[in-house]
């Protein structure tokens, strides 16, 4: 049976609590060196299991976050589209400017100006400078 992140957290908390109980017992009671070593080993085993259960809890919590992540990613996509719309207004104006320059150059029949204006129009249309 699969467990949830919160259930894994409860187990991890219980294991940590049991390890703390052992340490508290050692602090309050007279014990031999061998007994203390054995109790420390037992406490460490509980702490280790609590650590592994914490890893499990975080993994489950990350899985449970996926819907929110997808929703937020969608909002970011929308924001980028809105920004592109704003940029496209500036792009339309710059294309219009380049077109006017080109028309003017064509009327002047000035080859140098025509080449420059054509290049500006291309830059404006490809959006590199916008």
């Amino acid at each position, binding site marked *: 049976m699969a467990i949830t992140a919160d259930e894994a957290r409860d187990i991890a*908390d219980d294991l940590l609590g049991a390890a703390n109980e052992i340490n508290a017992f050692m602090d309050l009671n007279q014990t031999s060196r061998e007994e203390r070593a054995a109790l420390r080993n037992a406490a460490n085993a509980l*702490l*280790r299991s609590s650590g592994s259960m914490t890893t499990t809890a975080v993994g489950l919590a990350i899985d449970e976050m996926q819907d929110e992540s997808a929703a937020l*990613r969608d909002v*970011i996509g929308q924001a980028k589209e809105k920004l592109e719309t704003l940029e496209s*207004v500036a792009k339309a104006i710059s294309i219009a400017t380049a077109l006017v*320059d080109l028309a003017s150059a064509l009327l002047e029949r000035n080859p140098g100006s025509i080449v420059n204006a054509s290049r500006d129009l291309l830059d404006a249309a490809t959006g590199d400078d916008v």
Partner: protein
Amino acid sequence: MMKRQRNLGGVLGASLLVVLVTACTDLGAVRNWADTSLEAAQFTEVVATYADTPQRLAVYDSAGAAEWQNNVPIRAAQADALILQLDLVADYMAALALLADDKATDYSEDMGALTSAMQKTGWVGSDGISAAGGLISTLLNAATEAWREDQVTELIEEANGPLQTLLAGSLRDIVDQDFRRDLQIEAGIQKNYFDGLLDDEDASPAAKAALGEWLTVRQAENSRRQDKVDTYLQVLDQIAEGHQKLYDNRNELDGVALAKDLFKLAKKVRSNVKDLVKS
């Protein structure tokens, strides 16, 4: 005919006024808030601390080193996933800050270039072009400004649900419960390690004193890490609170009360981020 022209002028003037009045919202507070939140979301040290815990503890718990090492690759992958979540928050805040930036809808320079290009052609009178260009520029800026405000409102509306669930829910629980527990486990393992060494009857008083000092150093490190978790939680809470305020005031984003609240919160966030970075 004159009357009709005057009426038309009146209608145009009134329309311009309506557009300008509806477009004068100042989104500076939103932009500043989003910028601050973006900066805060980029702090990921607490995630790295969590990912590294098994490696740190394998040293102090040799009997369980293999189990700790098993957790290393899993936590590395989890850290990537968690940083991705924080990146999402940062990306959203960056997009919100850009959209709330006044420069996003200022086309004065672009229109200036267009009117100057038209003037050079000599097709239309210079004065007329300048006046028309100025008017079009004002109208265009105002219209896009109004549109932008609507888009910012819409963005805040749609983002608030998932953002609150992440910042005030899932992500907060991981930091508050799992990262905190992880550091308590570290404190326990380290204490048991040093207590075991100090329990050695053959150890010299000098060795015991040195071990005692090392234990104090490790406990201080652990305590600093726990402080960072506390501060980071405050940052997550403050980002969530600020966005909730934006959501609650989404139809009046240029309100003075909102600007004041966001300013105060941003100040707290910046102060917390400063603490996180320096300690």
